[in-house]
């Protein structure tokens, strides 16, 4: 009987895994089938022209800029907050409050982040639509993912490592630099990946804060310097997908966005593998 349940369970999990993989392959197939014909060197190297004509080079550049800004702001903040949650507030109520705040932040819908960005950066600080406003909103949005992933890894570092390092005379910050951060690098990388993959595709947060459909190239300053971005491009094109030229550009852009997210993951793969290797030796 127990074996039967065991087999049944294995079958069930296998099917669920298969379904998940199938869904992923299906989505990729749909996008690639319609997007690949539109792809060409011109498409990724030229500026957009009218509604659906030309290429998407500035949309790519804008998205990359948004991601870099979000990464540059969110990664150091996540390290600081994660250390606060795990090391410096090691006991007590403030730590629980911090964790609660992070989970709450994670549950905030992205459109709300967009409106907050609109109110604070665009209106409040008078930046107008700006790449920096969009990057900051995205950073705020991915911060919980990054922080939680990193904090989990820091908590998973064996307590004995911390005790042994302290026993040798390392100060608390030395323990952080010598043991905790190196041991949880993988968590930072994977958390960053998850966060960036999410940020790359979000439209709502940049809708009011950063993106325009046309008339922008690379920003020169902060104020009134909007950018083009792939998800927003797709969003606008999709609203008029009966136009065949727009349809081709739409699926072409979707393919590029997918490729961008995938290449991000692949670029980070070596680091992830290496950290796993080290963890096994430990």
């Amino acid at each position: 009987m127990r074996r039967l349940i065991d087999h049944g369970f294995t079958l069930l999990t296998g099917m669920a895994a298969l379904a998940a993989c199938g869904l992923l392959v299906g989505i990729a197939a749909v996008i690639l089938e319609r997007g690949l014909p539109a792809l060409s060197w011109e498409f990724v190297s030229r500026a957009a022209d009218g509604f659906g004509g030309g290429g998407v080079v500035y949309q790519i550049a804008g998205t990359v800029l948004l991601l870099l800004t979000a990464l540059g702001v969110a990664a150091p903040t996540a390290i600081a907050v994660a250390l606060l949650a795990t090391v410096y507030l090691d006991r007590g109520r403030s730590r629980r409050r911090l964790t609660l705040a992070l989970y709450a932040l994670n549950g905030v819908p992205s459109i709300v982040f967009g409106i907050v960005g609109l109110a604070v950066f665009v209106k409040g600080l008078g930046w107008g639509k700006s790449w920096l406003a969009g990057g900051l909103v995205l950073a705020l949005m991915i911060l919980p993912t990054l922080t939680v992933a990193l904090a989990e890894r820091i908590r998973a570092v064996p307590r004995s490592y911390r005790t042994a390092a302290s026993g040798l005379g390392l100060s608390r910050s030395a323990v952080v630099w010598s043991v905790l951060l190196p041991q949880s690098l993988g968590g930072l990388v994977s958390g960053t990946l998850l966060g960036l993959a999410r940020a790359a595709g979000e439209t709502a947060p940049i809708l009011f804060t950063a993106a325009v459909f046309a008339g922008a190239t690379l920003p020169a300053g902060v104020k009134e310097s909007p950018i083009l971005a792939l998800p927003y491009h797709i969003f606008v094109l999709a609203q008029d997908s009966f136009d065949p030229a727009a349809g081709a550009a739409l699926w072409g852009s979707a393919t590029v966005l997918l490729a961008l997210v995938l290449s991000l993951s692949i670029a980070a793969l070596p680091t992830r593998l290496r950290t796993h290797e080290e963890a096994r030796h430990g």
Partner: protein
Amino acid sequence: MAEALRQRSASSEPIVSAATTEPRIVLSCNDLEVRAGGTPILRCPELEVRAHGVTGVIGPSGAGKSTLLKCLNRLIELEPGLSVRGRVELDGTAVYGRRTDPARLRERIGILFQQPVVFPGSIARNVLFGLRWVRRPPRRTWPGHVQRALRAASLWDEVEYRLDRPATELSVGQRQRLCLARTLAMEPEVILMDEPTSSLDPASTEAIEGLIRRLAERHTIVLVTHDMDQARRVTDRIACVCLRDGVGVVAPSVPTATGLPDPGCRRAVEAIPGTPGRRVIP
């Protein structure tokens, strides 16, 4: 470095005068009490550790031997839920004094844990771990430090040709000596050893015991053991920890040769199965 050397020469002076005058007291505890969430788990009314030589701490499992050691270098403060009251002095300075830096203190009082804690990374890196993060000696002096520490811990011959191999390759006995090398590299005045032979075979146990005797010529050693035979072989003086009404109580140390004066303690210690290498309790 220079500071450590100065400490070394300062601490070796009394060796000459020890024969003629009162022995120097390096570590002393007075009215020490450890509580776990309000209930006392360990009391130490009076304990003195004399310079050089080996002071043994013996007692049944769960009496609080490891806890006592952690009180001496303030590692106890890293244990969640435990609090300490009372006085501990190292060379006349208050260990728990408000102006005492715990990291500096732990540099001077090294500790070897019941289970050797080896960091991920190579053998050489493990030996250098404390030095690199606390004293930061120039890189060109690293090989010298590694060799000296490994020789002092009697591990050099076994690892000479594989210093760059992962330290986790080593056997438990070798890891214990690696941890000793890591501690010796810091040139501590006092070394606390928590049952360093509890998971070793008789041959390795004998080797470590010989090593402890040799180290005692230059360092002050506090050795936790559960084995009265080992105590007779290695220690000069011995203090007993036994449970009274569920609280571990540390009795003042006596010369090992005269035996334990308290019949209760004697019974508790004789009741311990004394086969070295059999018991492995984390």
